[in-house]
Every structure is written in structure tokens, then in C-alpha cells.
């Protein structure tokens, strides 16, 4: 029986904006204010804080402490989310552990970033010597490599990736928080005609760096009841893995960490892929969505293209996919992006999906991806199942 003693008792999300001119701190203030307003929690009651590291503040090793200062919070439990797009779900999981341990009672999991205004991250490590000279500074080249290998092994249908892009764009049109630029319809022809940037990767397979923030309130179910908070979501399963196959230089690069954690979250929640009401996967690139459909067993490895072609992925379909548009069509607020998929899941489970509400949905599978390592797929994989 999955544990339901700690809950997500609220969420907040700012609009996604391109080159806002504002800082991650400023966006965090906006998200926290909205969260307090929506839940009726007083700021001084918050004694736990998880802060996702931000590209825009990447030069500050004390970012989380400065964030607590900026927001006027005095946490007795402070967590730094350093697993990129896994940090929102990972932060919620860690907050749950901290609450069960008694380290805090009311935690906020905060992700704010503004890389389209200021980019101050430098990954260092082996990259200057062994990756940058080849022209592989950004993720597109690595994803071009990954897609080429996937295509070689399994066959990759551009129309399947196009369907993911088109479906998510249709969802973004119904999401008032989505980036304005993306709030216009996209057709399959638009997708197929979009320019290649790292073959076979097209520009419409990719996200665009933006600015934004999101926040989640985590507390015990008992605490939420006592406060009269009626809408809660139960994170009934969470698993993550970092550096999957990291010590195997000849690993199949289409084998991601999701293959390792998918069985864990399904077992923990007592669910199967067929029982998942909506899928809100981390979507930095369309191929990542397709590969996750396979890793989580919605279809067999290599059958992602056919599955996407044959499945209604719209918010009223058989497997609603990234119902807010995902990062690809709502915009990617830097490393706060993992919270974008999570916020949409919580919003839907609270019945607040508005024009894109998934009818009668009772659970969600949400995932995170963090960092693009040397010549593989992604460095961190995380998954959470939420239920109401």
C-alpha cells in the first residue's frame, strides 16, 4: 500500500516569459506570493525550503541561502536541488522525507530561473578540453547523435516526433501561462518544414530557454486537513537515478535511467502503464518523450514511433501527454523546467486544468531529466506518480 501521509497541498506557477529582464529571485518572489495567497499559509509557517539551482545564478554556490534571505524565510531544513530538471519532483520527494523525519513541518519546493535574461552557468569538468573543441557545447549536438543512433537501431519516424510537437502545441494554446510566442497553432507540415539544427534534430523538436518559476507546498496530510486545505495530491511513488551506465563506455545510448526506475515507481504505487491517467514527461526534446514512452512500458523499446502514431495523446485522449504544452510549447524556464511538468500534473489533479482539463483524471506520471553528459543520453532521470 503506497504511503499517503505527506501531500502536495498547493502549487504556484508564473507565466513563462522570454528575456523578461527579471532575476530568478524576482520570479521566486512572484511564485511564493501566489502560493501563499492560494493556500492561506503564512510565510513564517514555512520551515522547510528546497531551492533548485538556476542557470541564471550559476556562479553563486550559496544560491539557496541567498534565496531564503530574499524571501525572508528561516528554514530548519534547506535542500539544494542540483539535479536540474529532476529537482522539482526530487525536491518534493526530499521534502517528504524531511517531514517524515521531523526536520520541518511545512516545506516549499521552489524552482526559479531566468537563463534567457542572464546565463551564468559554466559546467567546466572535462568539457573545455574534451567536448567543446568538437563543437558540442550545447545539447542539440548530443541529441542529434542520440537520435541518429535510435534511428539506426529502431527506425525513427519524423511524423511521430511531429505528432508530439503538434499535440503539445495544441495544449499550449489552452495554457495561459505558456510563452506568448508559442501560442499559435502548429501543423505537421510546419514541423516537417522546420529547419534541421543537428540532423536529424529539427528546431521544432527543441525547447527554448525562457524565464519563470514554480513552487510546491509540501506538508503532512494531517496538517493539510487541520488547515482546511481540501485539494491535495499524493506523491505515492518516486525514484531517481544519476549517471546510469556511467561506468560502461560501450553502453547502448538508447538505454536511459528510466528503464531502471520505471519498474520501481509502478511497483511502489501499485500501478501499471495501462493505469496511468496522464503522462507529464520532461520534454527537452521530442525524442526524450518518445524514449520515455518506451522506457515506462507504454510500448516496447523501439516501438515509440508506432505507438505515438496510433495513440490519441490529446488531453481528452487515451494517454493525455504534457497537457499544458510541456516545455517544448510552453517554453523552458531553465532549470525550473522540471516544475513546469509537475505543476501541470498537480493542476490537473486539483481539477484546475480549465480549457484543457483531463476528464476524471485520478493520477499522473511525471518525470524529470537533468544534464546532458558526454555522448550518452541524460545524466539524471527521475519519476514521480501522483494520485488523488
Amino acid at each position, binding site marked *: 500500500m503506497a504511503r499517503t501521509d505527506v501531500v502536495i497541498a498547493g502549487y504556484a506557477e508564473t507565466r513563462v516569459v522570454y528575456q523578461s529582464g527579471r532575476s530568478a529571485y524576482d520570479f521566486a518572489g512572484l511564485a511564493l506570493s501566489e502560493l501563499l495567497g492560494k493556500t492561506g499559509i503564512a510565510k513564517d509557517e514555512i520551515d522547510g525550503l528546497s531551492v533548485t539551482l538556476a542557470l541564471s545564478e550559476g556562479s553563486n554556490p550559496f544560491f539557496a541561502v541567498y534565496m531564503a534571505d530574499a524571501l525572508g524565510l528561516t528554514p530548519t531544513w534547506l535542500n539544494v536541488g542540483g539535479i536540474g530538471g529532476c529537482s522539482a519532483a526530487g525536491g518534493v520527494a526530499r521534502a517528504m522525507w524531511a517531514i517524515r523525519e521531523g526536520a520541518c513541518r511545512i516545506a516549499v519546493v521552489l524552482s526559479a530561473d531566468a537563463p534567457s535574461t542572464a546565463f551564468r552557468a559554466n559546467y*567546466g*569538468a*572535462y568539457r*573545455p*578540453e*574534451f*567536448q*567543446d*573543441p*568538437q*563543437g*558540442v*557545447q*550545447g545539447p*542539440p*549536438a548530443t541529441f*542529434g*547523435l*542520440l*537520435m*541518429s*543512433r535510435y534511428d*539506426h537501431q529502431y527506425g525513427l519516424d519524423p511524423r511521430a516526433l511531429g505528432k508530439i510537437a503538434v499535440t503539445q502545441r495544441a495544449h499550449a494554446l489552452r495554457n495561459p501561462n505558456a510563452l506568448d510566442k508559442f501560442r499559435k497553432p502548429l501543423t505537421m507540415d510546419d514541423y516537417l518544414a522546420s*529547419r*534541421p*539544427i*543537428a*540532423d*536529424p*534534430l529539427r528546431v521544432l523538436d527543441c525547447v527554448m530557454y525562457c524565464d519563470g518559476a514554480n513552487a510546491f507546498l509540501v506538508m503532512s496530510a494531517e496538517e493539510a486537513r487541520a488547515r482546511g486545505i481540501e485539494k491535495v495530491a499524493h506523491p505515492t511513488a518516486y525514484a531517481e537515478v544519476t549517471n546510469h551506465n*556511467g*561506468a560502461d*563506455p*560501450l553502453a547502448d*545510448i538508447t538505454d536511459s535511467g528510466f528503464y531502471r526506475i520505471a519498474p520501481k515507481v509502478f511497483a511502489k504505487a501499485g500501478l501499471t502503464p495501462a493505469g496511468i491517467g496522464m503522462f507529464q514527461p520532461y520534454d527537452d526534446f521530442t525524442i526524450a518523450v518518445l524514449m520515455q514512452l518506451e522506457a515506462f512500458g507504454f510500448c516496447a523499446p523501439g516501438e515509440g514511433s508506432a505507438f505515438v502514431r496510433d495513440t490519441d495523446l490529446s488531453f481528452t485522449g487515451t494517454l493525455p501527454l504534457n497537457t499544458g504544452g510541456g516545455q517544448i510549447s510552453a517554453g523552458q524556464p531553465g532549470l525550473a523546467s522540471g516544475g513546469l511538468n509537475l505543476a501541470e500534473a498537480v493542476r490537473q489533479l486539483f481539477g484546475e486544468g480549465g480549457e484543457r482539463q483531463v476528464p476524471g483524471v485520478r493520477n499522473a506520471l511525471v518525470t524529470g531529466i537533468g544534464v546532458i553528459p*558526454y*555522448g550518452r543520453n541524460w545524466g539524471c532521470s527521475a519519476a514521480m506518480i501522483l494520485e488523488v
Partner: protein
Amino acid sequence: MAETEGRLVPAANRYVPSQPFWDGAREGRLMLQMCLDTGRFQHPPHPLSVYTGSQNVEWRQVSGLGSIYAVTVVRVPGPGLAGRLPLIVATVELVEGVRLIANIIDSAAESVRIGAAVELAWDHLGDGTPYPAFRTLAQGVADAQD
């Protein structure tokens, strides 16, 4: 000199001691890190053997022969890419059992495909420092991957 001005020459030894890689490159030899306990190579280099956890690692010359495991063509501008687009980037699997990300140069476009046999070639960074790249071999030569 748009072709090379962006190709910065990185400082050696900032991540792990890497001088043998750069010394080897200047002598036309591709040097990679090998775990002496297992005889297996690892790349990029690590501060210890990822196979055993010991620091019993040394830089050894590799053959420079292998095959293309994955390949893309970068078509968008970026740091260090001025004058180099479109740029062929491949993951090359060496016969020694390790992969490198490298540019494919001096090769007919139709020969650059997954499974194609490649050999070491030398490209150059901004100040002329040699940097490893690969070129495709005529068909029929060792096809290690597929």
C-alpha cells in the same frame, strides 16, 4: 580568421592531469586513459578508474581505428563554430572499446554513416594545436560496430 578564432585552446590539467593527451597530440599520437587493473580505456578521463575505483590509471596510445557509432551534422551557430558549419560530429567507437566524440573531416558526405570504419585524422585548434578528429576509410575495411 573566422575559421579558427573561436576554437579556443583549453588549458590542460584543470580537470584531471591531462598533459599526456596534449603532448601526444603534438606528436600525432592519440593518448587515452587506461585502467591498468582491467586493461580497459575510459574517456573523457576521470580522476580514478571508473571500473575499479583505484587511481591505477595511465595514458596510453590507442590505434585510432574504429567505427562511427552515432553521427549528426551541426547546422546552427555557437561558440567556436564560426566558419565551421555545417559541422559533422560523430561518436566514434574505437577498437580498444571506448568511445570519443569527434569531428569527421576530409570524408565524402555519403561515406559518413553509422557503422562506417574510420581512422584518426588531425584537426587544429586556434593556435595550430593538433586535436583528434577522424576520417572515413574505404568500404570493406574493419567494420567494428555493426
